[in-house]
């Protein structure tokens, strides 16, 4: 690792001193604090909302209901919810916003919420597990049902077959910062201090809802306190905050309470998947059949395209996939770290581990036997793929081959080992950036990108410094404001490749401009001699057909994806059904890594997310109402420090992908979180011989629910 590759993040001093400002840290003069009132039941019709007691609460200024709200204009994606709340008397999930309390203080707004009485006629809710199944609407962004070859005969030909169902419970993003929007109207123009992963998504949606011109909406978002998908699309609370600010003609701060977060900004849905694998005796796959059913809302649609995982990971001659939706009275899901292959690999990689066991083949060898040298569906070459190297290096770092020689017991802990493949498609978004090269030898990047903690600011500064040949301390970046040049979103593991490429392209244009000014590379000399205070260039990362989005290299001569191998060592206390992580190694093929330090942090975080998903995270729906059983962090577990050993090793295979981006990079953000669950389940099986196909793997699943005393 070179010194330059270990750069500390540029915004870190702000964050360790508390100076970094997040959306809810803004309180313009005259701000009213807002708290949502949620629907009190999973389904029904409001017959009346009694606001008298709330209005009697000292400090409460107004309670807005559907009657007070404007009729919102039709919104389209990237709105996450198309059937906006506060428009009619029907509600379709517990907690759906039915009123908004505005008060001079947080205390008054919260007390006002508790005092609002919502009268309603209850309807019988469609409960989880009892909803109807339907094919998702088409066209789908991802998750098309496909058939390659003849899956039926491929299954029949196999000497060994696996046919299993895999389940994962719903879980929420649980970002530490709950979503917040501070809305202020001045002279008909709207400013939003917002907590988002793509502020460019916000103006068109809010403008459509409120009948405004999108150009009259400015979104400011210097720091976002974790997104993980929950702040990607535009959610109703952002529209509601803006509408309320327009009604009361005062700034409105709507900082969602943790409770509200569970029903206002999506989650990863409950999924049932069925995998059928067949293979020859020597471990060659003859067919993969993958079906996925994801839970979904009544009125809004989110498809969790888990079957994507099976389309491109292994070189099977026959592949068939099918997606289903199961609707019930619950809020709509949304992408969550890691979507798509995240759930998909839980099923596929678990089945591969079961197949390896059935074949008595090392699970790593089974993956190598079925390595997809070209993209299986299209037969296109990969833009770049170093998965074989990742398997090899991961296995070496972990000591996979020698695992059976090591001790299997440590006090009460029985030790087990497991592995899986990681993969995530390559999402690419069109992106722009402006770079100003100044006569004093400094450069400034301007791009409406975001800081959600993925290290993008640092990475972009590094790219510019490297392209322009400047010392890193001479490069700065302005971000998080829609007044800056539009750029890509910070989701879908796409920002480094997209905005990073735009920065690089702008810098290359600046170098061309410098070249036209004269010989040499020193901007101070060249700009000084030309009498120019600065030169400016815009970079644009574009996609085939001028599309805003490209998945997996569609429409190009190359298929694109990212890969890795995850190896884990777990300890099981069989008397308690407890499982603890002891160490992990992840090795990845993800293109060029721009800044190793922040990249390692991101992959480590991904593995920990995978650990949380595997062993504790779940948002349970009460079986009789369908409502979320817990909307807090005291009854919903995410990993804490004590769960996570320091012995987590990250390795990136040396790689430069010239096709995926202008800087050799593909995305890494979500890759690390994939495959971990399947590796953990395999390690538990390895340790105690219990095969678990339902996430999260809680103690009672290891003990057996009715285990005798």
């Amino acid at each position: 690792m070179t010194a330059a590759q270990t750069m500390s993040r540029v915004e870190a001093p702000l964050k360790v001193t508390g100076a970094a400002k997040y959306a809810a840290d803004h309180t313009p003069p005259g701000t009213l604090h807002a708290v949502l009132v949620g629907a009190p039941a999973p389904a029904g019709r409001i017959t009346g909302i009694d606001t008298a007691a709330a209005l009697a609460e000292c400090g409460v200024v107004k309670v807005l209901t559907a009657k007070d709200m404007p009729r919102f204009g039709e919104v389209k994606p990237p709105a996450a919810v198309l059937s906006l709340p506060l428009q009619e008397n029907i509600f379709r999930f517990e907690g759906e916003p039915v009123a908004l309390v505005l008060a001079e203080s947080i205390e008054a707004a919260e007390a006002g919420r508790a005092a609002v009485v919502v009268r309603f006629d209850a309807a019988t809710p469609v409960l989880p597990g009892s909803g109807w199944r339907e094919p998702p609407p088409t066209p789908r962004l991802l998750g098309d049902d496909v058939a390659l070859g003849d899956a039926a005969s491929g299954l029949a030909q196999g000497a060994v077959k696996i046919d299993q169902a895999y389940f994962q419970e719903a879980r929420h993003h649980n970002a530490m910062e709950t979503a917040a929007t501070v809305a202020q109207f001045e002279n008909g123009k709207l400013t939003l201090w917002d907590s988002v992963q793509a502020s460019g998504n916000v103006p068109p949606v809010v403008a459509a809802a409120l009948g405004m011109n999108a150009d009259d909406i400015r979104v400011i978002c210097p720091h976002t306190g974790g997104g993980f998908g929950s702040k990607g699309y535009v959610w109703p609370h952002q529209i509601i905050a803006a509408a309320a600010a327009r009604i009361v003609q005062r700034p409105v701060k709507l900082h969602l309470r943790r409770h509200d977060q569970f029903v206002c900004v999506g989650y990863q849905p409950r999924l049932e998947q069925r995998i059928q694998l067949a293979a020859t005796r020597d471990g060659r796959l003859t067919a993969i059949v993958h079906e996925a059913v994801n839970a979904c809302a009544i009125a809004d649609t989110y498809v969790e395209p888990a079957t994507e995982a099976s389309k491109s990971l292994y070189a099977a001659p026959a592949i068939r996939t099918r997606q289903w939706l199961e609707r019930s009275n619950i809020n709509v899901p949304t992408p969550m770290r890691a979507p798509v292959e995240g759930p998909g690999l839980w099923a596929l990689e678990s089945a591969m581990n079961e197949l390896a066991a059935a074949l008595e083949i090392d699970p790593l060898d089974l993956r190598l036997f079925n390595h997809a040298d070209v993209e299986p569906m299209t037969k296109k070459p990969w833009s770049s793929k170093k998965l074989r190297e990742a398997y090899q290096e991961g296995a070496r770092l972990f000591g996979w081959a020698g695992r059976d020689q090591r001790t299997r017991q440590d006090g009460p802990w029985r030790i087990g080992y497991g592995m899986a493949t990681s993969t995530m498609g390559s999402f690419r978004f069109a992106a722009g950036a402006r770079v100003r090269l100044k006569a004093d030898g400094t450069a400034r990047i301007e791009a409406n990108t975001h800081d959600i903690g993925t290290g993008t600011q640092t990475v972009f500064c590094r790219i510019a410094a490297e392209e322009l040949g400047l010392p890193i301390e001479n490069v700065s970046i302005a971000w998080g404001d829609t007044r800056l040049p539009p750029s890509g979103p910070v989701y879908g593991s796409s920002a480094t490749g997209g905005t990073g490429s735009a920065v690089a392209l702008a810098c290359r244009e600046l170098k061309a401009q410098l070249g036209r000014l004269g010989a040499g590379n020193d901007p101070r000399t060249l700009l000084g001699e030309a009498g120019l205070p600065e030169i400016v260039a815009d970079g644009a990362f574009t996609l085939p057909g001028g599309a805003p989005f490209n998945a997996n290299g569609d429409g190009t001569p190359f298929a694109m994806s990212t890969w890795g191998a995850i190896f884990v060592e777990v300890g099981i206390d069989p008397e308690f059904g407890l499982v603890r992580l002891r160490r992990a190694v992840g090795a990845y093929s993800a293109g060029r890594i721009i800044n190793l330090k922040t990249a390692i942090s991101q992959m480590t975080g991904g593995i920990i997310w995978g650990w949380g998903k595997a062993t504790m995270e779940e948002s349970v729906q009460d079986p009789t109402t369908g409502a979320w059983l817990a909307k807090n962090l005291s009854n919903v577990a995410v990993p804490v420090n004590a769960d996570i050993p320091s012995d987590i090793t990250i390795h990136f295979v040396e790689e430069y992908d010239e096709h995926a981006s202008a800087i050799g990079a593909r995305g890494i953000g979500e890759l690390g979180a994939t495959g971990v669950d399947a590796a953990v389940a395999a390690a538990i099986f390895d340790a105690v011989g219990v095969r678990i196909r339902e996430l999260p793997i809680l103690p009672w699943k290891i003990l057996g629910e009715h285990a005798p005393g």
Partner: protein
Amino acid sequence: MKAFDYACSTDPHQVAAALHVPGTAIVAGGTEILNWMRLGIAAPDRLIDIDGLTGATDVRVDANHLSVGAGVTLNAVGENTQVRQYAHVLAEACLQAASAQVRNRATLGGNVLQKTRCAYFRSEDPLPWPCNKRNAGTGCAARSGSNERHAIFGWMDACVAVQPSDPAVALACLDAEAVVISARGERSVALTQFHFTQEEAASAGGDPAQLETRLGADDVIVRYRIPLRPGSRSAYVKVRERASYEYALVSAAAAVELDGDRIRSARIALGSVAQRPWRLVEAEARLRGMRLARDAIDTALHGAMGAARPLARNGYKIMLAHNAARRALLLAGGLA
């Protein structure tokens, strides 16, 4: 939370007198009552801050007892050398509760009064489901719902909640008593008798879901008195899927006195299996005179779970409780 009036007092008698006015509640650390007020579990008109309560702020040892003030925080109890020496299981239970930050606020007095972590109960008003503890007469959603974490002893159809306190389990194991002051004077309540199961609450003529302790409305816990037993060794085992900052699925506190490898006396209390710490009195009797060893303990514990009545989803707790009790005994005896 609703607006309330606030006052401070360090005089237990004054606090007890203030509690005579309905709608008055105590705040000490505040780690429970503030959340109750946010959720709608409690809505006091008056909150009396008892920080520095006379007689409740120290740890001391006299001839026969370790005495721990109710106002001492969990971290201070857990790191106190006398507590670690004479009531090791209490120190361990305190330090395995909540987080370092919460333990700097939460007091030992308030801790045993914390309410169940049942997710149905810990929801915000208005509840979308029945809960007899929150709204009497509505029913118990957990009885037929998601009840993996609920009771296997002492429950009724009206309520299947468990008491989640870690220190209470240790205190019950140690035969501790709470010293309580009210207008009627000072009295002691054994921690084994302090909480009611739902069945016990009903037997006492109370609402099985709402009557949770023997404390009267104006009772103020001032101290805990723990009998000193020279040579006694103790341990606490807390089983939880998350390694820290998490409530127990099941916990076990054990204390043993040994003659060589023979058990002179043993005391075992289970946590999170009932709405009170659950002492295994019969198993304790069977252990007397036995060798402290895995097989012997299994024999003694056999049948201890006989009274268990698992719910639809928590049958695993029977085995878990047995295993936790055995581990705690072995740990207490230095064998695990």
